[in-house]
């Protein structure tokens, strides 16, 4: 064994077996295996690697830790966070998660499996993805859904690339400036590198300026238009006429919607959109400091071959039973390589289980109630904040569970003072100094709102 390859401690460990809970090898095992291979040591397995690029030292990292030590370190980190009572949204919403959902998601038959290439032993995964596809297609009012994207922002970027791919000779995509800033930022990045001419459509009174959009679409060089619902101010936009306009000019339309709202707002399908995209975090997925979430992408059957990502389809097995498989794989990177519809491979498959279980528990009645409660609590909060005299309205548009107000005074001071008291009041509204975009959900009760509003009344701004 070349002595300079590994530290003496490692050689010692190899000699006496691994003695580590995740490695099952005894010293005898290692010796017998080396004998079968015909080498003398573990390091001999690396003999072909040029010496000058090997690491001739230990990694500069801490030593191994016991289970209790690891638990202690990570618990301390969690304790250094201070979760605030959440009145913020902007793409991440504090909705209730039924206890059944994480419980079912802890079943390791699901969580420790790979992408279901071997359908005969993956019916569990394939079936919940099929249910997820059905549920998302139904919620969006579209024909089909894929088996997840990373998040709502990358799903929207994929929608943009789909539009360009479907249009063939057009490379311009319009996107409303009223879309969530985090989504717009990601779409811009993808557009820049993918070579898409992304044009941001100006807003007027808190909604997309339809006249500007119309003028651009009428130039007949637009592959698609991406609009949103509700928008970055929380306003529910009226999209009437946009899809017809797009279709008259051979452009596609995509609607980005916060998924929970799909149960009560006019759906992308009802707006006659071609693509529906967005984040499904609002369907009972914990906020989790930004992830894992799940992006959804749904479309019309005619566009299936332009769709990125995995698709699960129904078929039958050799005994004629109804079964499920990954299908239409000719679109994907492992077959088509650079000609694939997208590079996406591993996405957020497991989160389909979260969504399917959540929607199965909530049903149509639960989704109506969640939105009814979120609507009521957000509107109550909105009115209560205005009554303090320390806020003023910015826009008149109707909203669901998120709204934007201007603080009469220093919004930053207000937000920081409330954070000290344990409340997260909204997020600063981008490009609108002094404004906050504030959200509420069914998890906020009236007492929490009243307590916070009392604090605000007492504050000098």
């Amino acid at each position, binding site marked *: 064994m070349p002595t300079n390859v590994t530290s003496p401690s490692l050689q010692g460990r190899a000699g006496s077996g691994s003695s580590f809970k995740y490695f099952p090898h005894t010293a005898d095992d290692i010796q017998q295996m080396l004998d079968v291979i015909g080498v003398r040591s573990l390091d001999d397995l690396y003999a072909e690697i040029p010496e000058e690029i090997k690491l001739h030292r*230990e990694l500069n990292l801490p030593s191994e830790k016991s289970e209790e030590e*690891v638990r202690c370190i990570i618990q301390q980190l969690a304790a250094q966070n201070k979760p605030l009572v959440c009145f913020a949204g902007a793409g991440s919403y504090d909705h209730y998660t*039924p206890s059944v959902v994480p419980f079912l998601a802890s079943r390791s038959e699901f969580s420790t499996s790979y992408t279901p290439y071997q359908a005969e032993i993956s019916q569990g995964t394939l079936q919940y*993805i099929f249910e997820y596809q059905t549920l998302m297609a139904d919620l969006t009012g579209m024909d089909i859904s894929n088996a997840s994207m990373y998040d709502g922002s990358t799903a929207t970027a994929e929608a943009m690339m789909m539009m360009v791919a479907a249009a063939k000779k057009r490379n311009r995509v319009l996107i409303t400036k009223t879309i969530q800033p985090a989504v717009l930022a990601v779409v811009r990045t993808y557009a820049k590198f993918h070579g898409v001419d992304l044009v941001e459509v100006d807003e007027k009174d808190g909604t997309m300026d339809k006249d500007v959009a119309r003028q651009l679409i009428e130039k007949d060089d637009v592959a698609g238009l991406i609009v949103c619902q509700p928008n970055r101010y929380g306003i529910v936009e009226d999209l009437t006429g946009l899809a017809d306009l797009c279709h008259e000019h051979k452009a596609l339309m995509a609607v980005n919607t916060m998924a929970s709202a799909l149960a009560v707002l006019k759906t992308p399908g009802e707006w006659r959109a071609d693509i529906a995209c967005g984040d499904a975090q609002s369907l009972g997925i914990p906020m989790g400091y930004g992830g894992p979430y799940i992006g959804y992408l749904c479309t019309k059957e005619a566009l*299936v071959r332009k769709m990125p990502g995995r698709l699960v389809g129904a078929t039958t097995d050799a005994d004629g039973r109804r079964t499920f498989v990954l299908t239409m794989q000719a679109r994907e990177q492992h077959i088509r390589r650079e000609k694939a519809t997208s590079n996406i491979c591993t996405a957020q498959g497991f989160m389909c289980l979260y969504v399917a279980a959540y929607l199965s528990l909530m049903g149509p009645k639960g989704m109506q109630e969640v939105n009814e409660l979120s609507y009521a609590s957000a509107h109550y909060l909105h009115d209560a904040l205005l009554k303090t005299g320390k806020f003023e309205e910015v826009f008149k548009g109707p909203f669901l569970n998120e709204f934007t107000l201007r603080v009469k005074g220093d919004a930053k001071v207000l937000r920081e003072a409330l954070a000290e008291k344990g409340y997260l009041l909204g997020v600063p509204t981008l490009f609108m100094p002094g404004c906050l975009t504030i959200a509420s959900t069914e998890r906020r009760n009236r007492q929490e709102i009243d307590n916070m509003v009392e604090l605000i009344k007492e504050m000098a701004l």
Partner: protein
Amino acid sequence: MNRTYYGKLIFELSKPGRVGYSLPKNEYEGYSLADLGATLSRQTKTILPECDELTVVRHYTNMSNNNFGVDTGFYPLGSCTMKYNPKLNEELCQLPGFNLHPMTPAKYAQGSLKLYDEVQRTLAEIAGLSRFTLNPYAGAHGELTGLMVIRQYHMSRGDMARTKIIVPDSAHGTNPASAAVCGLQIVEVKSLADGTVDVEALKPLLGPDIAGMMMTNPNTLGLFERQIPEIARLVHECGGLMYYDGANLNPMLGVCRPGDMGFDVMHINLHKTFSTPHGGGGPGSGPVGVRKGLEQFLPNPQVITKAPNALKDSNNPLSPTAYDLHCDDESLGYISFFLGNFGIIIRAYAYLLSLGKENIPMAGKLSVLNANYIKESLRSHYLLPIDTVCKHEFVFDGLREEYGGDHHSPDHVTTLDVAKRLLDYGFHAPTIYFPLLFHEALMIEPTETESKDTLDDFIAVMKRIAEEAKADPQLLKTAPHDTPVRRMDDVKAVKEPKFTYKML
């Protein structure tokens, strides 16, 4: 696995009037969704199921019994690094303290920001690079982000001509696909007979239009690219950058670092190398690391540590903010909603802490030991196209002729048949028909968490299957026989596509 079949869909269990949730009473008067009006409201009914709680629990529990995971049995899926997913990590990622809204001010998220930075630093040491972003969501997303870094670097120098990327013919399919999404043209470089990059074929491809080269090392045949110092030198000499696809990082841990091999940018799959669960196709995590001098191009937001002096000057000395979020003007932009799959990053941190500097290199070495042991034990029955020491994985080119018949004959026993028969014996199949260099590729990757006993069982079964192929090929051609369901009609799934319950 035990035979079991549960074919019901949740929609078939629905009964009007049932509920599976409980919500608080509406405490607010005078507000109604109906006020939004018909123009903005949903008009069509949903087909969401109506189920009680137990119905939902039984439904998904029964479904899970049809599923095979690492906890069920050996999963030698090549290029996927299906190692054991420690349960401690699952416990810790669910601590309530981590359930923050992403727009929580940094001051109240110090624990999460510190964890992010610790993982970032640990990966940088393991990779031999300067700095990592943990924002990318998966391996392919990491590739895309890494290629964006490379393009951003060239553009920052005003060098707009570098629009081509070199990719070996043995590369993972995501490599060319990610390059295409990134707006790069792909130039393929051929492999030599021994499966490694042909340096002589590479030379004429290099020039002022080359943005860089993507490689995985060891490559998809499990072979270490010995010429890597020379390849890196040539690519750097022409002005390009070297990209390392970290899918095959596991065997290199603590032995030879991508940064030391000459790579400038790389991604790591936390769901491969650092044990986070694959979840049936994600969520994964694909952190991207860069060499010194490229840090500013990483995506926003970036987690930064403030200098000690800044802490002293802080307005609020009682609660100093040591970690903060930062947006760099030179950055390539945003590629994710926030800081990526944070829950996955917590799991990886628990794993890295558990292993420490002693066991991280052991993981790689034992994975290589396991792979070579299987290879040497089965070459009597399966065709080994490249006879050399492999790293964490290797490729057989199907059954040897004396067992499976001539590969050119239409009725020979194929790799698909072998894979399906393995399912009957309680093993997941290896990766099949990849890499594309061999017609009957059977790509085996055991990981370090598999015992010699498990490998011996697998080897015995693989030999038995070879004997079966010789004695009764039909047994394999109609396999699997003992799985929950049998071979699927894949053609029907494409010809009569049904993607939703409504389409059934």
